[in-house]
């Protein structure tokens, strides 16, 4: 299922939770794991200087510096690497999301694991096309494989994964997310929850919906799920359909808690990549930031169909 995993890290404690999950999964699935760090942003025109992503200091980008960074990463993740049979550590300079996507494509990885955001440790390096902070969004949107985003310690992750919640808005990319959730559930024998939240957030704008209307819409959503997803599951019956009404990200978080989910799968297909709006701009980002379990974002069918 996950032959090759790309763990994209800032190399700082903010990625510790993601590291834990990434290496655990690699161990469980005997995956090859690429620990990948974009060490600095190219700076000063075409020069050899980069602004180090961790310190914000200007550094000279050469083989020496890259090996030093690799060694640091090796030390940082030593406790995990000793358990890994097959791993590589790589570091390059560049715009983080660009280099992560480039690497994922080059190695044809099956999963990218990363932290949610690095805003807490913003350095001078961020003064760059608003790059940092939107990396997660850009990677999630562009990656051809599922992207597992881990922002908080996973309290329910005992053995990846027992209860998978797939949240759908019935979009095209959501189907890719479904395929991934279903295949994973089937392969590892976990329970799959197919969840949809009836969006009532517009109620605040003065529009009133009667209880009858809500119930009709819930019924419609259920039929949609039965039509769109259920036929693709053949004889697999370890699933449950859930439809709650409210503000989508709140409902999916509540549902996941109720079901003790250890993985939420969603599509991340917002078009908006404006640097200022991005991080809190969509349901999936709200879920990522607040969920107590990892969130997989799947937008493309490449690695999940077939």
């Amino acid at each position, binding site marked *: 299922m996950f032959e090759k995993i790309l763990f994209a890290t800032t190399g700082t404690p903010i990625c510790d939770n993601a590291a834990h999950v990434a290496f655990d999964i690699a161990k469980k699935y005997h995956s090859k794991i690429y620990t990948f760090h974009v060490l600095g942003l*190219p*700076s*000063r*025109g*075409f*020069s*050899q*200087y980069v602004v180090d992503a961790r310190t914000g200091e200007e550094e*000279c980008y*050469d*083989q*020496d510096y890259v090996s030093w960074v690799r060694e640091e990463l090796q030390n940082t993740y030593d406790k995990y690497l000793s358990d890994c049979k097959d791993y590589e550590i790589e570091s390059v300079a*560049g*715009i983080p999301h*660009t280099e992560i*996507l*480039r690497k994922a*494509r080059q190695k044809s990885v099956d999963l990218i694991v990363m932290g949610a955001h690095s805003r807490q440790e913003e350095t*001078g390096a961020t*003064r*760059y096309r608003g790059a940092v902070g939107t990396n997660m969004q850009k990677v999630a949107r*562009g990656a*051809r494989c599922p992207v597992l985003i881990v922002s908080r310690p996973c309290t329910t992750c005992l053995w990846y994964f027992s209860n998978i919640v797939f949240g759908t808005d019935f*979009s*095209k990319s959501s189907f890719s997310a479904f395929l991934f959730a279903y295949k994973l559930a089937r392969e590892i024998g976990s329970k799959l929850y197919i969840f949809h939240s009836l969006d009532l957030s517009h109620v605040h704008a003065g529009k009133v919906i009667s209880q009858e209307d809500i119930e009709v819409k819930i019924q419609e959503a259920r039929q949609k799920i039965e039509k769109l997803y259920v036929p693709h599951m053949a004889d697999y019956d370890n699933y449950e359909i859930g439809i709650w009404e409210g503000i989508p990200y709140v409902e999916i978080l509540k549902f996941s808690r109720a079901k003790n989910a250890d993985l939420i799968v969603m599509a991340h297909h917002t*078009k908006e990549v404006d640097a200022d709006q991005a991080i809190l701009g969509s349901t999936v980002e709200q879920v990522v930031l607040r969920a107590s379990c990892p969130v997989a974002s799947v937008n*493309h069918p490449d690695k999940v169909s077939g």
Partner: protein
Amino acid sequence: MPEGTLCNKLPINTKEELLTLLADKSGKKYYEEMNSLEVNVPALKALLDKTCKSRTRTWLEICSHCGMCADSCFFYLANHKDPRQVPSYKIQTTLGEMVRKNGNVDNAFMQMVMDTAWGKCTCCNRCGMYCPFGIDMGVMFSYLRGICFSQGFVPWEMKIGSGMHRVYRAQMDVTSEDWVDTCEWMAEENEEDWPGLQIPVDKENADIIYTVNAREPKHYPEDVAHAAILFHLAGENWTVPSQGWEETSLAMFAGDWEGCRLQVQGVYDAMERLKPKRMVVTECGHAYRATVIEGPYWAGLKSGKTPVPSFHYVEWVAEALRTGKLKIDPSKKIKEPVTYQDSCNYIRNAGLKDCAREIMSYIAEDFREMLPNKEHNFCCGGGGGLNGIGRYREQRNIGLKVKRDQILATGAKLVITPCHNCWDAIRDMEEVYHIGIRWSFLKPLLLQMVVVPDHLKPEE
């Protein structure tokens, strides 16, 4: 004759040499070696005899030291009108002195020349416009850089840059495979949002051959995607070459004349090979100057012109908007005050000022000119390779003050910079001076406001 292992008169020609030079952190050893690099006086004399022709000698001779060029130089203005920053002083004490001494100069002199030619002049050619005799110090400094290069007195990054062109035919270590792969990647990444989007490689007889700056595939591949999407929306029949795709020339900044020739030859070969109707280059100023304005002479083309007519990106955008190939949604025009950075290389030195104004008339509601502007505009402060040279970082940052004050005076918070060097300098300016501005190439802005025809929209 003492020659360093890193700092010497030989250009970089192999990957190994390049890596060895790169491994010398910040050029520490390189500059140490430079202190004992001997000047080859006979060679210098011979070079002056052969290349310092009547125009240059006349210019040096007729300068009447009137000082009209002083206020034209942003370095002079930014350095509290230091007389040592007057362009005529700068050229007279370097090239002038070298010619008067007929090449009989020493190491200390050559280092002073190097520090002046790269650290006190960006070859923006503004002074030439204000000289009553039309003496162009920028042109002479470009020439002087070539002399310095031949003697090994060249900033560390410039030697690397010229070496990159010689080894990779690109200013960065991007191979043709990397380039083609980036094009494929960008087409794949955008095909869902833009059905039918392609980045055709090596297509013969296209209307447009598109060439770029190596930094795009290296660090900002989305720029290549943006170009592709805009060509796609405009319905252009276009292509990129797998070889000869890089238009820039750090060799030009370095004064590596042979490197310059090698670089443009590759681009011209691509034109000959693929027979496009015309060439369009990305939003880069010096690339245009190198390949379109100066290149034909380096390559020995008698016509003084590129093998096919060549256009800067702003020319293509102006044309596309004028002819309606690209249409702007009026409600999406830029509403906030916005200003435009006139790049020396394609505005002052190639006359494309009207294209820039035409574009602004289509896309901006509150366009504010910098003062002065058009061909009189000041250099961004990072031209001529200065952005990338660590040795002159401080001088560069001081020089940025002139551009900073020009931008602040417009009241605009958004600066359109269709030139990589200007874009970098203004980015760095924000990092140094924190004036709260944003800067952008044209492509991402156009993508936000262009009308997408129904048949090109993705199905949902």
